[in-house]
């Protein structure tokens, strides 16, 4: 139990996998947040029945398992003959998945800004744009940021599923090592520790922010 044939090279292999995990997460969260911001503003700004089609489409991404979304997207790009690499396919699927959740976060945060505050801003002569950037944004950010941090960590964890498309990220890397070294418990514990180290401090930070900002309300 206390001796292992895991070498430094193997550990580097796992860390490289962790790098891929972080890269997928980065692209997915960046793309997803930009889309989520746009969709969220649209959802908050127009009447519900106008944005119903958008809400319906985004809801699909939250009601179908991510693994199936990845498989479907990969099969579709093959059928359509786009020839996109699995890495890019995964990033796109995860970005849409992120956008679906981010839209709800943004919409909720904008809705949390009291309507009277916005009306006051407009009656002071601020344009819609100024109202959005200088009144709504700072107030909504406090509501949205803790959930957004949670979403980012969730995407990081869910990005493990891209291994099904043959991308060697952290979990797949450890699986390869398990097959070679036959020490499943130890290697998986190392992989779990890496995930934990990546996720736990940021989760704590999010909880801290949430608590601190609640006191000021």
């Amino acid at each position: 139990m206390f001796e292992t044939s895991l070498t430094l090279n193997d550990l580097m292999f796992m860390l490289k996998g962790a790098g891929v995990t972080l890269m997928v997460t980065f692209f997915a969260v960046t793309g997803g947040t930009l889309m989520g911001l746009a969709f969220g503003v649209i959802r908050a700004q127009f009447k519900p029945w106008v944005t119903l089609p958008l809400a319906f489409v985004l809801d699909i991404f939250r009601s179908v398992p991510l693994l199936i979304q990845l498989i479907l997207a990969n099969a579709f790009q093959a059928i359509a003959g786009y020839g996109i690499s699995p890495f890019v396919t995964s990033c796109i699927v995860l970005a849409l998945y992120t956008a679906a959740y981010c839209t709800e976060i943004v919409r909720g945060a904008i809705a949390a800004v009291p309507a009277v505050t916005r009306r006051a801003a407009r009656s002071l002569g601020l344009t819609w744009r100024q109202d959005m950037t200088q009144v709504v944004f700072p107030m909504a950010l406090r509501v949205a940021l803790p959930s957004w941090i949670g979403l980012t960590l969730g995407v990081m964890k869910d990005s493990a599923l891209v291994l099904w498309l043959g991308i060697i990220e952290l979990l797949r890397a450890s699986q390869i090592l398990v097959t070679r070294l036959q020490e499943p418990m130890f290697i998986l514990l190392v992989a779990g520790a890496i995930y934990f180290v990546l996720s736990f401090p940021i989760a704590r930070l999010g909880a801290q922010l949430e608590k601190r900002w609640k006191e000021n309300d």
Partner: protein
Amino acid sequence: MGNYTFQWRQALRALPQMLDGALVTMQIAILSMLIGVTIAVFLAVMRNSKSRWLRAPATAWVEVARNTPALFQIYMAHFGLGSFGIYLSPYVALLAGIAFNNAGYLCETFRGSLRAIPSTQLRAGRSLGMGPATAFRLIVMPQMFRIAFLPTMNQMVWAILMTSLGVTVGMSTDLTGVTQDLNARSFRTFEFFALAALIYYLITKVVMLGARLLAWRLFRY
């Protein structure tokens, strides 16, 4: 669109098989929720206790469950335990992994609900002559479940979606497993998985709708 011909009829012919798979999926999700809720109640009580020795293991469980991927937790149950000579079948490993994950997330939900219940409720129960366990069971727990009902149902949807991960440890009887099996035999990946996605979508919608109706029926007063 290249020169691919969609063969939907083939997928539709496999529908009964896939619906059988959907039943297994529901079975795993419900079982994992029952186990998860039971453990989560204990974890929530332990995390609120004054004793460090009770708090530490509960905190560890919750933090590990929430800060590592669900797939990792299933891998631990399936491959990891092999180091100790324990070999779980894909079904049991999947169930254990999801139940572990559910318990971690539900513990936090329940803890939040417990905070919303005034401590005077418990004290009133105690002053009527109930023991601490009885007062908790009869006074606090029903209120806790009521506050936590919709978040718990959300977790149920998560559990349903998580069951699809079973295919990565060789599960072949749940909806994703059956679909993957059909796919491996026919290479009609898109058709079969599109149908599976539709079934998952309908299941989650029905569960959410059922939860709303149930909440409306149960918590009317």
